[in-house]
């Protein structure tokens, strides 16, 4: 795990040398090394924990939640009111090392939602898998709060001026998932087919 993380930072963030993320990676690697050298954990254990978490974490979880909400109005109501309880009904759980509160925000004809973490890269990993590189980039994190409509336009979405753009900055204990609008002409689709219509980017709010 430590080698993987190191490679990841070295090769995927060439512009980030000396940044807090690189410093943190070095500290985490040093901590893991110290724990290993004292026989407290084995590298294989750390890898196994991460793999177990990541194997269950992927955008199909988010798609299941959305498809159920589209198909079942009562479920949609619960999801918007108490998202943790709603996803538990599907056997899903946000927690990894600590409980995480989920909030689901709904796109409508009157509002479009978009999620960011301006302070770092908070993201509902359990429901969407690891965050894409662009989500963690300084360009996205700074621009989406300065000019969200322009950023959305670059992702291919033009939100009409009379539709409110709601930006959700994950600054503390909550994680966000966007509930997109149900596709038109999908009344006779079952949940499996509805799931196919959900993309990861739509659950972040940068696609419809």
């Amino acid at each position, binding site marked *: 795990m430590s080698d993987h993380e190191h490679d990841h930072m070295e090769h995927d963030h060439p512009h980030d040398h000396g940044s807090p993320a690189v410093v943190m990676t070095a500290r985490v690697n040093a901590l893991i090394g110290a724990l290993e050298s004292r026989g407290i954990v084995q590298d294989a254990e750390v890898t196994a924990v991460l793999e177990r978490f990541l194997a269950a974490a992927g955008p199909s979880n988010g798609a299941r939640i959305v498809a159920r909400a589209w198909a079942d109005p009562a479920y949609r109501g619960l999801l918007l009111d108490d998202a943790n309880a709603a996803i538990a009904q599907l056997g899903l759980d946000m927690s990894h090392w600590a409980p995480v509160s989920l909030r689901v925000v709904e796109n409508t004809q009157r509002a479009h939602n978009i999620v960011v973490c301006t302070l770092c890269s908070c993201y509902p990993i359990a429901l969407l898998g690891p965050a894409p590189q662009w989500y963690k980039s300084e360009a996205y994190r700074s621009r989406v709060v300065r000019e969200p409509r322009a950023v959305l336009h670059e992702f291919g979405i033009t939100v009409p001026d009379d539709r409110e*753009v709601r930006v959700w900055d994950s600054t503390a204990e909550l994680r966000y998932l966007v509930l997109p609008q149900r596709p038109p002409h999908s009344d006779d689709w079952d949940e499996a087919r509805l799931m196919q219509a959900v993309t990861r980017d739509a659950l972040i709010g940068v696609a419809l």
Partner: protein
Amino acid sequence: MRFAVGDAVRTSGRDPDHHYRVPRYLRGKRGRIEAVHAAFPLADARAAGDPSPPVETLYTVAFAGGEVWAEGAEPNTVYHAELWESYLVPADAAS
């Protein structure tokens, strides 16, 4: 819990040299309480290694685009952030 949904609040304009979760673009800005959450340990104290950090109510605060970016704001945009109680004062409080 000091604030309720709908209350007008202002974020502190402080710029401390320690860990702090009010993003710079929202410092000293007026908004409204959009949601009241549970109480959570204050991130500033946790980051400083405080073994018993203060536990404060967390709020979602909504800020109008024009409040954040003045005339440079895009139309019809609203920003939301989760902020601990000690980051907030009533909007009409003296600076």
